């Protein structure tokens, strides 16, 4: 891009400089007297006497996450409280960070044979890409908790097991196997 040749008058930038100071002064007085638009996306304002500057004082104040925000994972429960997950390993296969560890097991008497005995996510390795949610054929893993992975004091604590991931509202779809199939009585082995 060629440099613009400035005339001496332009090079002084005098008018712009004075305008700039004017802008600062205007903002100063406006903010000093609190004539500010409130930040609409702030979920709650903590404490008394806060001004309405759109800055979010994070630990005390929080911003509403946009819909589709990828938060911490959860394993979606069925209506009976068991995980919807059938341990198909699709999430583990899709995961580019290889942070999902699954061990499959077999239900004794149920229409869906397979379930995860262990389902662990290493939230430190997770890159929050959401591929696992995309890959899941059973809508069994979601990132709709609206929370971050919490800070931990040691690395093993960032590995979340099935029990801690299994939370949130239960979900049932009309296409679920459980809705149309009676439990099997055949012992597995």
């Amino acid at each position, binding site marked *: 891009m060629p440099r613009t040749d400035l005339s001496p008058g332009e090079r002084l930038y005098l*008018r*712009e400089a004075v305008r700039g100071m004017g802008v600062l002064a205007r903002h100063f007085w406006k903010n000093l007297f609190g004539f500010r638009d409130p930040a609409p996306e702030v979920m709650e304002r903590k404490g008394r006497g806060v001004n309405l500057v759109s800055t979010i004082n994070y630990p005390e104040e*929080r911003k509403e996450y946009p819909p589709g925000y990828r938060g911490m994972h959860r394993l979606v429960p069925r209506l009976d409280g068991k995980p919807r997950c059938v341990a198909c390993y699709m999430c583990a296969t899709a995961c580019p960070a290889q942070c999902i560890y699954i061990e499959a097991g077999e239900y004794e008497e149920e229409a869906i044979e397979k379930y995860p005995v262990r389902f662990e996510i290493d939230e430190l390795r997770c890159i929050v890409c959401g591929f696992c949610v995309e890959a899941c054929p059973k809508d069994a893993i979601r990132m709709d908790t609206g929370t971050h992975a919490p800070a931990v004091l040691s690395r093993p604590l960032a590995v979340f097991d099935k029990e801690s991931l299994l939370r949130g509202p239960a979900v049932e779809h009309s296409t679920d196997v459980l809705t149309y199939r009676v439990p099997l009585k055949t012992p597995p082995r």
Partner: protein
Amino acid sequence: MIETPTARLAFEDFGPAIPPRPAFGRWLAGTIAGWTAFVAFLLFISWLLLAIAALFARLGPIGAAVGNIVGLILILVMVTATLLTMADRKWSALMQDRVGPNRARLSIIPGLRNRPLKGIPHVLADVLKMLFKEDFIPEGAMNNKVLFNLAPLLAFAPAFMLFAIVPVSPEVTFLGQRIQLQVARVDWGILYVFALASLAVFATALAGWTSDNKLALLGGLRASAQLISYEVTLGLTLVGAFIAFGTLRLEEMARLQGMLGPALRSAVVLAARAGDFLVRDDSVLFGWLPSWGFVYQPIGMILFLVAAQAEIKRAPFDTPEGESEIIGYFLEYSGLKSGLFLIAEYAETVVVAGIVTTIFLGGYHLPFIEPTVVRHFDFAWLSVFQVFAFIVKMLFIIWVMFVVRWAFPRFRYDQIMRLGWKMMLPISLFNVALTAGIFLWAGREGLAWMGGIEWLAIIAFVALSARAPRAEEAPHASH
């Protein structure tokens, strides 16, 4: 019933999104209460300064001097400079639509747990940090340990000594003592400022050289060159003021910008007879313009402000320091010594603001209403209001300097040199010649006319100067 995977959990868990705006009445009451408290506080400080001076004056002439030192240097300058470290950040936050520092807490005091207190605790936190940080001296600086330690003192001490000649109040009888809020009344007045301000060069040069660090040395060189360059302009811009007031003494200059003692007394008598609005103030030019320095010396004032900003190494003239990128002369200092360099900068700001107030903004004078004040109160109370006026004017100049600081990006070194030698020096020389000529031809009245014309010319020049060229249209706009 097929739910979308993006559940609305987060939205349901927390209450209404938009906080209610505080009611207007509450806002108005709070604002009025706050500003009233602020004014009352400043008035109390003004009374306190005078009271301290009067108290010490009972101990004789030396006591009076000590009282002024305590009141002005230790209380006014020191406290203001300390608070400016905070104000710099808070004001810049206001200018830039931010909140500014508010994380420090005084949690050890029971009622103040988790109260930001508008960031005031940060002052304490900063001081404690400076005090308790390791005072590290680099190996290369051990050879010149004395000079290395001397540098921050040379930066710190002159900044405070400069305030010694600034008059904060007129000579007045307060609590039975004849006092004036001024540490030293010397014949050579403003020359004292120039002399002491030059000492700052030693601080930067010493700090840069003894640090045994090439980056610090370069910073010191930049600082020395900049300070020496702008001292020339700094001196020449005030020559016009000397001509206009015919004195070097700051207290004389301040006195000359308002009503002198006898005239004030007669005005008070007149006001008592004819009413407050018919008072004739013989210091007012053309019947409406206070005869303050900025009327006589517009160019001088603007150039002095710019040169002073350069002299105290504040943005946009902060190439000697360049904290974030190019690193400055106090690179190797840590702990309290580093703090001395930093606080010296703010102290210099206060001093420069005081000098500008004294010479160009009428010093402690209140415009128009001094006889009225005396008629309704008395001369002692007038002095309280005058000290208050001085502080307010000083704060205003400080505020202007901060606005300049945040409005301008840092100048490059060559730009600083070009501005100093090729623009400001010729203009200040021209100003001296013009002022001298006009003064010889038409006296102070003529200087006032000249000042008015100069103000108009400056405003016209700024208004008519070219706007910055707009950014060119992005090429992808046409596709």
